[in-house]
């Protein structure tokens, strides 16, 4: 069993960071929220059970950015982002003008991730950081109520990490619910409104970054030495415990 009696809620307009050691069940939690894995218990969106929702409707309301996105064909950046409109019907690379509101959403997604100049480039010729921006733009193009991203910062350099987090935080401020699985506690403390610390398939702490990243919680979850520092978070300055070495 990967997750046990996990109960949590996510709000629209907030960025929620899910953190925890490897194997804590973070990715599994996202996949449960999407109804992609069989599970007991229930994931709800508003008053509806996700697992029994029509899959197209679920796809329109919750978008997902899985870990390690690979691309099979050298599609253009715009064509990839456009695939995010699939659950809305009509607009595909085959019928690019099928929906004008879809086009506006695509342009906006490209613009927010600074991809306008790259829109005609082949996805396979882009750097890792650029590919992640495209993947995120594709997820934004779904234009759902929630966006779940599984380690979008993996293998990105610091500049790109900030860029992706800025884009996600900005998107949350526009009203979407953002849920990000991530490892960098400092970045999480800085950008998250809300945090969930998972360990061994259970919720160890849930709340604001300063409520979650306490000295004992971080020590217990990660088995590390910590140091308490002040960070400039979404809810103003807060003090959090960050790892500095192996315990």
């Amino acid at each position: 069993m990967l997750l046990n009696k996990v109960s949590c809620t996510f709000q629209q307009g907030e960025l929620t960071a899910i953190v925890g050691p490897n194997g804590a069940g973070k990715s599994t939690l996202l996949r449960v929220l999407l109804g992609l894995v069989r599970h007991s218990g229930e994931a709800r969106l508003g008053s509806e059970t996700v697992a029994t929702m029509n899959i197209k409707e679920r796809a329109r309301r919750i978008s997902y950015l899985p870990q390690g996105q690979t691309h099979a064909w050298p599609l253009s950046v715009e064509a990839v982002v456009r695939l995010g409109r699939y659950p809305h019907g009509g607009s595909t690379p085959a019928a690019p003008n099928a929906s004008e509101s879809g086009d506006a959403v695509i342009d906006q997604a490209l613009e927010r991730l600074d991809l306008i100049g790259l829109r005609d480039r082949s996805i396979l010729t882009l750097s890792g950081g650029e590919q992640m921006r495209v993947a995120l733009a594709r997820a934004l193009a779904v234009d759902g109520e929630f966006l779940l991203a599984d380690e979008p910062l993996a293998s990105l350099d610091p500049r790109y990490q900030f860029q992706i987090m800025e884009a996600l935080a900005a998107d949350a401020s526009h009203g979407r619910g953002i849920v990000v699985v991530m490892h960098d506690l400092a970045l999480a403390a800085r950008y998250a409104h809300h945090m969930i610390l998972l360990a061994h398939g259970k919720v160890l702490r849930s709340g604001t970054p300063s409520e979650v990243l306490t000295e004992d919680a971080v020590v217990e979850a990660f088995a590390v030495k910590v140091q308490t520092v002040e960070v400039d978070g979404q809810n103003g300055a807060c003090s959090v415990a960050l790892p500095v070495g192996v315990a």
Partner: protein
Amino acid sequence: MGLNVALGGLTACLAALSLAIGTTWFSPDQFIAAVLGSDERLALILYQIRLPRTLLAILIGGALGLSGAALQGLVRNPLASPSLFGAPSAAALCAVILISTGAAGALSFMLPIAGITGALLSVGVLLAIAGKDAPIVVLLLAGVVLSSFAAAGTSLAINLSSNPFAALEVAFWLLGSLEDRSFQHVWMAAPFIVVGVLLMSFQARALSVMSLGEETAKSLGVDVVRLRILIILGVALAVGSSVAVAGTIGFIGLVAPHLVRPLVAYDPSRLLVPAGLAGASLLLAADILVRLVPTSGEPLKVGVVTALVGAPFFLGLVLRERHALAARGAW
């Protein structure tokens, strides 16, 4: 759209050539006389011999090209094709068993059914393996094993056949040919091919989304299990019934999508129709070629020509993809 018109035009030109070429070459005047029926002998040759042959080349070439494009989209790999999935060999095995046991004649509707069943089994097994995120190497190896097994089974059936002439007939038919086919063959294969092609065409958009990977496709609302089943069914219907009337014709399903892919910006959803038209053109061209090459005895079989051209093409493709294969271990 322009591409489809161009490829459609090419197919039409080759079809006209295919109607005009044979033991008797038609001059433009004779061609018109044959079409209008003012010369009865020529009209007979045109409508009873060359038209079914040409229609079958278009149907079967189209079925193979479109099936190849659909399979490549589904498993996200340009090396996939009906032949590599063992579909034609398995279809041939089932058809041969039916003929060599005398359970059905060469014009029975049971033949396409047997071919479809064989293709369904092989593609189903292969995609069941692929479903567990198997790398393409595993798929290709499994395909080789399935093809060899089906080929061995076919040899066994010929081996055990009591009538040596029946065995000879089966062997020649297995080489893949469109010679001496009648409208009966067209009606035997056409309904299944049309249904198979439609099944696959309706999945075009989902195939585009599959290019992002199965997990992302699921999150975007693609029912991946259903998609896989529909593509298996479509390929089995189209390829199985093709093999039942023409024998095994290899490599069209691999080559056709590859040739037109850059022309549709690599989009799997836009690839299906052009790949079908390219397949039809390729098979028409190959079938014209076998009629032009002089031989002392039996005319060349079109399946032999497509394999002779297709195998080196496939090798070239493997060499080109070698770096990608090595770089992306997941392949």
